[in-house]
């Protein structure tokens, strides 16, 4: 289905190669067979491997590689006859649709649930709750890279190297040594003192009985406790104090794979089966809170009630209303939109934007706006289409001023705390595209870039990132020379003159042009360097617009593309892994329920959690 997305905003595309399996074979014969045929096919791939319709089922992976390489213009290679963009896209769309249909023939699939390490943020939040301490124990842990759908909770990247294991060991030591000196943390851990009636070992056993099930997020047997009691005994033999022995024992717990990794009981059966209540509690809490289950989730799991659909729906609502949902929201939003880099790797130029450089509060307000907006959207069950455009937003006094909005026009003065406000007409600030954080990270530090912004819209909002530029083609915007035209639009117009560039830039650039009224910090402007801003754009299908409001209307009119992309991102985050073609069937089902519920944000989360892909663990034979 992603190829559907490639047909970005085009109402209809001539389908020279798109309509049937036979057409796909004609494409392969024309553009691929000369190299990928015969006795010694290039790269060991012979088009004959995919010469039968059944290959869509049995050689789906091979078709997927063809799709990827043709879509990214890696094939055919330079110097041989290549299809034009229309033929290329209609061919890849046909592959995508065909593979989707083949994968979904048996309905939504269950989750293979790969084991994964708690990432840095999850580890920090989990230790914080386990020990009831505000210590940032993950401070010295390295940041996790992104994987899967672009998030740092993806199983693909969350392995544990020996070096990293040492860092976790240090973090656990630091956290526990702090905790045993803090009365609140001691109570939370359940530290009981040895006495005449309670030997040190019995006290340790009692501590472990309370602590271990919470740390492992499920009931534990006595046998599972033994290795940790052995650590306690060992420390006692070394004449360590009781507290030090407890720390030694609990360090073992915090280094256990059962704590450090999220894993569900294996499913050795052939068919999928539901996750048990405790695994479901863990999946829910790391999805919606980015931390461990709370006592109520554990209680519901112990009663065997969490899998009850009515109970589950109630819990989803409670979890989304909780302040802990910010754990999910902040992680998801800042990675999805790329705003996590703002103020770190990406800093607007201090000379051009002195207000940003000088005002820490303003910087914080800019950074928080998309996150608080998304949290409010979820908590109030507003439609997800509000992410594209809305008649409300989140403002502080400083943000309103930055945006040229009079902060006094709202009931109850705007202050330092972010507040939901109804936007005045003509504010141009509805949805994500009116937010400074988004507009800044899709610019250069010193100026806007219609190319970067267009690419941002295609990638982050629509899930249709353009292919990488062809090799050996210099970046147009960086061209220097006396004959260089003055305005950005004039410079970028050269994209249209160069057929190598025109195919993609005819889609990228217009979207960026429509946002040119925002400077690199997102402030509204009507002219640049003394010349009026030209905010007009025209898509390949002839759709014309001027300015952000009209562009957002175009996006909303064709919202399916955004909804599919957004749903896929949320699903990838929820599952903590990259999506496969099978998962697109779950996306279909979630989208259908979303549409039935007026695109309400909580309906999306509910539909996702109730879907087999979230609730069921795959067996050896799917589903």
């Amino acid at each position, binding site marked *: 289905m992603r190829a559907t997305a490639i047909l970005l905003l085009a109402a209809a595309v001539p389908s020279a190669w798109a309509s049937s399996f036979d057409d796909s074979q004609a494409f392969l014969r024309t553009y691929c067979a000369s190299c990928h045929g015969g006795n010694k096919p290039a790269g060991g791939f012979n088009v004959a491997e995919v010469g039968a319709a059944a290959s869509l089922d049995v050689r789906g992976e091979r078709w997927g590689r063809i799709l990827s390489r043709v879509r990214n213009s890696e094939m055919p290679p330079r110097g041989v006859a290549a299809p034009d963009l229309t033929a290329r896209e209609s061919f890849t769309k046909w592959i995508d649709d065909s593979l989707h249909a083949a994968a979904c023939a048996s309905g939504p699939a269950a989750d293979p649930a790969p084991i994964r390490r708690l990432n840095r943020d999850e580890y920090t939040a989990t230790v914080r709750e386990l020990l*009831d301490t505000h210590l940032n124990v993950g401070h010295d842990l390295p940041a996790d890279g992104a994987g899967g759908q672009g998030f740092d909770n993806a199983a693909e990247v969350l392995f544990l190297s020996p070096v990293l294991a040492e860092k976790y060991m240090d973090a656990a030591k630091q956290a526990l040594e702090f905790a045993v000196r803090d009365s609140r943390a001691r109570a*939370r851990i359940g530290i009981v003192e040895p006495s005449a009636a309670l030997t040190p070992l019995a006290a340790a056993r009692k501590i472990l009985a309370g602590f271990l099930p919470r740390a492992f997020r499920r009931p534990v047997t006595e046998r599972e406790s033994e290795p940790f009691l052995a650590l306690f005994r060992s420390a006692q033999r070394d004449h360590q104090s009781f507290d030090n022995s407890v720390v030694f024992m609990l360090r073992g717990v915090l280094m256990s794979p059962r704590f450090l990794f999220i894993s569900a009981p294996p499913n050795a059966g052939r068919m999928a089966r539901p996750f048990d209540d405790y695994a479901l509690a863990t999946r829910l809490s790391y999805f919606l809170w980015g931390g461990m289950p*709370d*006592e*109520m989730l554990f*209680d519901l799991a112990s009663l065997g009630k969490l899998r009850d659909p009515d109970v589950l729906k109630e819990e989803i609502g409670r979890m989304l*209303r909780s302040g*802990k949902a910010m754990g999910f929201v902040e992680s998801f939003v800042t990675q999805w939109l790329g705003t996590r880099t703002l103020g770190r790797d990406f800093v607007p130029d201090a000379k051009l934007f002195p207000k940003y450089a000088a005002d820490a509060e303003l910087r914080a307000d800019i950074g928080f706006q998309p996150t608080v907006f998304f949290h409010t959207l979820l908590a109030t069950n507003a439609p997800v289409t509000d992410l594209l455009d809305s008649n409300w937003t989140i403002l502080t006094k400083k943000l309103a001023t930055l945006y040229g909005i009079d902060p006094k026009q709202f009931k109850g003065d705007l202050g330092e705390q972010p507040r939901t406000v109804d936007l005045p007409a003509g504010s141009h600030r509805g949805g994500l595209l009116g937010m400074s954080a988004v507009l800044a990270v899709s610019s250069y530090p010193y100026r806007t870039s219609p190319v970067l912004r267009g690419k941002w819209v295609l990638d982050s909002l629509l899930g249709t990132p353009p292919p990488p530029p062809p090799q050996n083609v210099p970046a147009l915007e960086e061209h220097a020379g006396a004959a260089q035209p003055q305005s950005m639009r004039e410079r970028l117009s050269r994209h249209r003159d160069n057929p190598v560039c025109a195919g993609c830039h005819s889609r990228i650039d217009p979207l960026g042009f429509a946002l040119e009224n925002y400077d690199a910090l997102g402030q509204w402007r009507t002219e640049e360097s003394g010349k009026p801003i030209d905010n007009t754009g025209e898509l390949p299908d002839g759709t014309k617009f001027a300015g952000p409001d009209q562009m957002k209307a175009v996006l909303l009119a064709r919202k399916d593309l955004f909804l599919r992309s957004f749903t896929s991102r949320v699903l990838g985050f929820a599952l903590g892994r990259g999506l496969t073609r099978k998962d697109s069937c779950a996306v279909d089902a979630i989208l259908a329920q979303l549409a039935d519920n007026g695109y309400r944000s909580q309906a999306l989360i509910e539909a996702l959690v109730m879907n087999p892909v979230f609730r069921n663990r795959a067996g050896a034979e799917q589903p």
Partner: protein
Amino acid sequence: MPHRLLALSLLAFTLSAADVTGIWTGIWTEPNRDPQDFSFRFTQTGGTLSGKMYGDNESIPLKDAKIEGDRISFTVTTEMNGQINKFTFSGDVHDGGMELTRERESSSKNKKEDKPAPKQTLRLRRLA
């Protein structure tokens, strides 16, 4: 005979009392404030009631918990940043739900300055 009558009447009373054992939840809404979830776990043995109120991090035990017929009451004491607040919940169990009134006693530190807190009504549903 009188003993037997007393035992029978006690049995009848016990049977007629609502059994609230389980997890109950409700949302308290207030103008211009985020909705707040309240969740409780009750354990009822005859006329004896115990339980806890779920908190963000850990639960708080219910004190002075009583259930007589359909009437239920208990107190919860919270501590935040050194400020101690005692809340009394009381109300009825009916139609499968629970309607409670919450009253806050004055803070331990500012008893003289505290204005009497308004009563708030909370409706709970049995979750599990």
